[in-house]
């Protein structure tokens, strides 16, 4: 699909203007990089605080079975035939429901990071998610998401319309901010777009209409109540300039047109491709559509998705049960996405994260409470996979954060910074990207940087 003429003109003239003046070459270089198939960062946010110890299971640590008498994942298949941990290292294994990812781990395209999270002690979902999605622990004055800040910092006049998307009804906080990102309406949007296309189009007729309207309009003070009298001195020759309300009206029309363009564009891409094989889950459908945008070469740089419901205070289950089912949904959807993307996966990074981990010890309701250190998964061609990253200091009580939770050894900002750097060559420390943060943490080095260019 080609951009509309108006967009093209606006884009190209800005391009030539900037080039002629030698301005903003970095933004231009960025824009050029984003032509075709740029690297793509896809985040999956597990809302609610996903339990790290029952996902990447420290089955080699005997303490694990002491602290989790009813919800531990067995190291060996037990009498009741409950599936056992899939060993990764001497210490760690995968939850059996994550089996679809095992092959990727072995093929070095998937890695895990343990004991990662926020430097802020909060155990509130709301604060922890906010701090993480804005990559600004404890700094409430920052209200824009880290992905949005990245998009703004690297934006140019000719950003592609689908530079960032969230294929769900509302934007995750990481994508909220001044950079306009499309969150896609569900349901039949075509109907609405067709019905309102005329009313929301900045076409040439409308331009002409606005020009004429300015000149031909009869002096509006004829309508004014007589008793109020003229407010402006200078007699009847008051020419009504634009009414202030017209500015907003015009802006609305522009936004409407933009919505229609972007959405049609997106839907064209999504419809125009055959359906790859995905499991039947909401997450899988979102990933399937995201994959289509990537494959279409529309310059998708960032996509963010939510997968909610990980707050397992009670009856979280072990190798089967509630959390096991959710891990299965996650793993199957990720694996389908990986296989669907094929070689595009070389330039795609999927980062799976959650706001915090959970208590090491299970609680009285066969579940776990809000904790501190958590885990992340990284999938993609540039991932130095087949590794569990992060320092492991054991499950002994005195080794835990406040005697109860996994500690945070890897600040999530380090993970984010390495992702932006490896994918896009973006240097967070040089741009003061993370507010009130001195980057002197140990690197994780879980990614191989893409070749520059």
């Amino acid at each position, binding site marked *: 699909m080609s951009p509309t003429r108006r967009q093209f003109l606006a884009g190209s003239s800005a391009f030539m203007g900037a080039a002629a003046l030698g301005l903003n070459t970095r933004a231009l270089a960025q824009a050029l990089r984003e032509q075709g198939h740029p690297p793509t960062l896809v985040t999956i946010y597990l809302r609610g605080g996903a339990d790290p110890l029952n996902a990447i299971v420290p089955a080699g640590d005997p303490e694990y079975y002491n602290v989790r008498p009813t919800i531990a994942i067995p190291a060996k298949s037990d009498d009741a035939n409950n599936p056992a941990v899939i060993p990764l290292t001497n210490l760690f294994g995968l939850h059996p429901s994550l089996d679809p990812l095992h092959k990727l781990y072995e093929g070095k395209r998937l890695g895990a990071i343990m004991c990662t999270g926020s430097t802020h002690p909060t155990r*509130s*979902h*709301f604060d922890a*998610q*906010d701090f993480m999605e804005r990559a600004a622990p404890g700094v*409430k004055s920052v*209200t824009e998401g880290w992905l949005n800040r990245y998009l703004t910092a690297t934006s140019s006049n000719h950003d592609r319309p689908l530079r960032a998307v969230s294929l769900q*009804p*509302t*934007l995750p906080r990481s994508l909220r901010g001044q950079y*306009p*990102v*499309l*969150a*896609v*309406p*569900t*349901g039949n*949007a075509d*109907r*609405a*777009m067709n*019905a*309102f296309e*005329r*009313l*929301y189009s900045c076409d040439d007729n*409308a331009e002409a*209409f*606005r020009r004429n*309207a300015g000149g031909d*309009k009869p002096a*509006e*003070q004829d*309508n*004014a*109540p007589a008793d*109020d009298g*003229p*407010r*402006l001195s200078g007699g009847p020759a*008051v020419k*009504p300039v634009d*009414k*202030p*309300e*017209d500015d*907003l*009206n015009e*802006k*609305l*029309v522009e*936004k*409407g047109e933009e*919505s*229609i363009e972007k*959405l049609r564009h997106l839907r064209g891409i999504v419809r125009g491709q055959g359906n790859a094989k995905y499991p039947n889950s909401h997450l899988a459908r979102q990933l399937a559509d995201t994959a289509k945008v990537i494959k279409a070469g529309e310059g998708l740089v960032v996509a963010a998705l939510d997968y909610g419901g990980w707050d397992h205070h009670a*009856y979280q289950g072990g190798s089967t049960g509630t959390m096991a089912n959710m891990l299965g949904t996650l793993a199957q959807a990720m694996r389908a996405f990986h296989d669907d993307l094929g070689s595009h996966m070389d330039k795609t990074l999927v980062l799976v994260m959650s706001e915090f981990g959970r208590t090491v010890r299970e609680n009285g309701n066969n579940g776990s409470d809000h904790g501190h250190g958590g885990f992340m998964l990284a999938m993609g061609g540039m991932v130095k996979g087949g590794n569990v990253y992060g320092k492991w200091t054991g499950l002994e009580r*005195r080794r835990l954060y406040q*005697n109860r939770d996994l500690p945070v050894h890897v600040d999530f900002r380090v993970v984010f910074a390495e992702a932006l750097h490896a994918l896009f060559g973006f240097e967070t420390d040089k741009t003061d990207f993370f507010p009130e943060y001195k980057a002197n943490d140990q690197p994780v080095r879980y990614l191989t940087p893409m070749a520059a260019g």
Partner: protein
Amino acid sequence: MPKRLPMLTTCLLAVLALVIAPAAVVAQLGDTEEEQQRIRELGLGAKQGLDSEGNAIRVSAEEDSGPPLTERERATHVLNRMAFGARPGQVERVLEMGVENWMRDQLDPESIDNVYVDTHLAEHMPSLNMGMGEIFRTYRPEYTPYKGKTPTKAERELRQQEQRERNQLRRDVQAELRAAVYHRAIYSGRQFEEVIIAFWRDHFSVDQNSNDVAYFANHWEENVLREHAFGDFEDLLMATARHPAMLFFLDNAVSQKPLTERELALIEKYENRDNVPRSVRALQRQRGLNENYARELMELHTLGVDREYKQRDVTELARVFTGWTARWRPRNMQDNARNDRRRGNSNADQQDDYGFYFNAGVHDTGNKVVLGSRLRGGGEEQGISVIRALAKHKYTADFISRKLCRYLLRDEPSEALVAEIAKVFKRTKGDLPEVYEAIVFSEDFLYRQNHRVKFKTPFEYVVSAVRATGAEATSYGQIDQALSLMGQKTYGCPDPTGWYDTAEAWLDPGVLVYRWTFAMDLAGNRLKGIRVPEALLANLPAEELKKKLANQVLPAGLSERTSTIIDEELGRNPSAQEMLSILLGSPDFQQQ
């Protein structure tokens, strides 16, 4: 009158004086008989806002960019800003009674009969009249306890069943509150009251999805916002500070005095030992200071971000509020009465209620310095006096006035008007109806530059669309869903900032598509529980149809652009449904 001290100093002194001798503060604020006498002599004080004939002096800050609004535009304007848009025929009624008379009535909500809405709420939304204890008992019933140490399979299954029921009840009590909000916004005759309460709902935002706030928010809406929105700001602020919804949403309920070096050493000593003494176990459980509320109290509720206070003030203020929490207590007990009954967190006694509790045991009694004032010792009174001082602070006057002007006039209100309104706020010591009146009866309120320049928030859009059609609503699930899609869940803003009311916050690509879809579903009678009257959907010749529906939905008229484009469509003989949805989805209807 004594030499005037700068307001800031006055406030700092106020904090200081409250601690040393409460009576002295009153003098600073000009409340003694002697002070008032002087104020009267100088012709200031309460009468200041009136001219020699007793008419209100109108605040005026800038020139009208003209041309002046027509009477019809004025009627529409007040219905857009002091109400959630016009209902069918309402513009005509306002014109008939006079725009100003209508505004006067709205400023005095109690003068307006509201039997229909009150009856509906009493019949269909019982949770709104419950105490929080009763809410817990009704919507969060206790689990059947396990008999043995480890639950049997049957017990476990029962527990799961009970948990599902509790989850459903929790959703019910949450949905009932939201339904009440929509019902009042759409049908209340006291529209300005609803508009103002919507403002405070976001100013003092609590999220009903945050833990137990689900069970507190209904009581909060009725007893904090509704009780005080037309009273003094200080009382409103105080009520928010002491309500479990806020205490829990911003974590003050779990904020406790920080551990001392000595206590930390004790905990260390007993780490990994058996036989930990009881006192040390209590220390281990002590959670320490939580600054969340203290920060938001200054940043979001009173002074405005980074004005006057520093991180140190946040920490010190958090210490002041340690021990401000909530718990079970005997029914009808006053908030400040002593409560020695220990009940834990069970639903326990049928007579018990749930509410504010000052837990002296975890309160930090050390000296503090807040905003430059030394506060000696501790106690519940200390927090109360700080809240009073913050309510009267000049930055609070500025911050609240600015937000109200932005809400009621335009996204970037003139500095001059904000300053004038802040003066009224200060002069009346935060008498909110006086402040509202000063804004809506300012010359500026009906100026051209404020007309239709605000972009409706999703809530305003949805409510005004239902109002414009005169639709009858019997359930609100679809409104909930629409607002959720548009990203503005009622009582569901996860940020303590509340939802923003500026165009910048909402005018994203994509958002309009949801509004068009809503317009089409509403006009097509496809929203379950919401019926647009058949009479409105009667088909007419195209010209007449346009005239009739435009007159009802956009009573101040269409923009020429919209009108022209609709005219172009008339040849197709659109149905009434199509015409209605086009009008509701037009750019013009997004404006107010």
